[in-house]
């Protein structure tokens, strides 16, 4: 691929990744703001260090509680870098096999480690 085309492709990719990260972050912060306000108003927080299990997360989100909105925000935030990896995989696709494989391996390791811990 000519250097000019390579440079143009890289710029497109950078702009796309910029968008992915920006949208994911802003959305998660909005959910955090809503959730925190609701949780304080409804006195859902009994202790700042109070933790929540994976099983309870689903119940909290289903009830649209303040904590539920916060959990949704965490999920969106955690998903953002993962979506970024997928976006780079799509861009490198057939153009750079090595980097595509690296992206796939990175994503696979993250998902597998979570599933292993769940079991």
């Amino acid at each position, binding site marked *: 691929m000519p250097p000019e085309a390579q440079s143009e492709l*890289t*710029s497109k*990719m*950078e*702009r796309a*990744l*910029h968008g992915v*990260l*920006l949208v*994911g*972050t802003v959305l*998660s*912060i909005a959910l*955090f*703001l809503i*959730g*925190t306000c609701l*949780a*304080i108003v409804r006195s859902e*927080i009994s*202790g*700042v*260090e*109070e*933790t*929540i*299990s*994976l099983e309870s*997360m689903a119940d909290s989100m289903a009830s649209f509680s303040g*904590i539920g909105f*916060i*959990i949704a*925000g*965490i999920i969106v*935030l*955690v998903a*953002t*870098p*993962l979506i*970024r*990896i997928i976006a*780079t995989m799509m861009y490198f696709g057939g153009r*750079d096999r090595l*980097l595509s494989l*690296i*992206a796939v*391996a*990175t994503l696979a*390791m*993250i998902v597998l*480690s*979570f599933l292993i*811990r*769940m079991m």
Partner: protein
Amino acid sequence: MAAIEITLLILLLASIVIGLLGSILGIGGGVFLIPIMTLGLGIPIAVAAATSLVTIIVTSSTSASKYLHDGLVNVRLGMFLELFTVVGAIIGAFLVTSLEPSTIEAVFAIVLVYAAIYMQFNTEDSCEPRDISSPSSLKSRFGGSFNDECAGKRIEYGVRNLGRGAGASAVAGGLSGLIGVGGGIVNVPAMHIWMGVPMRAAAATSTFMIGVTAVASALVYFANGLVAPAITAVAAIGIFIGASIGVKKMTKITNRSIKVLFSATLLVISVLMFLRAGGWL
């Protein structure tokens, strides 16, 4: 205002400052946030680490978004090194439930000492970056370029010592998983000193990487039920505000006295963490 609200307000204000510093230094801010939560607010270190990891994702995503737009991030190099940080992060996160909290606190204290030293040497005090790329590395696969507004020209660089950089990234990831930091305090000097990446590009690329590193660790912490929603949300909001302000500057802290002050603060905190690890606090 109830005690809970006051605690959350203190955390919010501290997080804003940490987000500002983190985005400028190319680090996630965990080295500052975790001691505030453990020593200041009495939060268990594993919970503090889980919270820190989420905020690191915020710092990374907020700052990297801007740096990508400005063309500072070396995406290829970042993706390559991410592979190794993720391996280290997963191992570190699995270890955290097997180790005593005092052991983790002692490790963190040692990292703080390193961070204090790092802050003294991680910045360039002039606009003109040192010529650190050897001619033979200029055409390497992972080389990059960026418009340096400070120097007023386009900087091209190559990358060397990929193996050493990969090893450093694995260590950075291990620290991330074990104590809840982003790993930038290892990534940035490794890229700059060993791999020949100019400081601004190294900081931007590190910021790009640490989000994925933090996710790898965070998911393991979440599976262990270590998420505290209230402090996570408040810290994340504060970090977002601070990082959003910090990226508009993207200049390093050049005032020598400020750098010395922050290093001294980190050293004091490390002493307190050692005392806590030893059960004297």
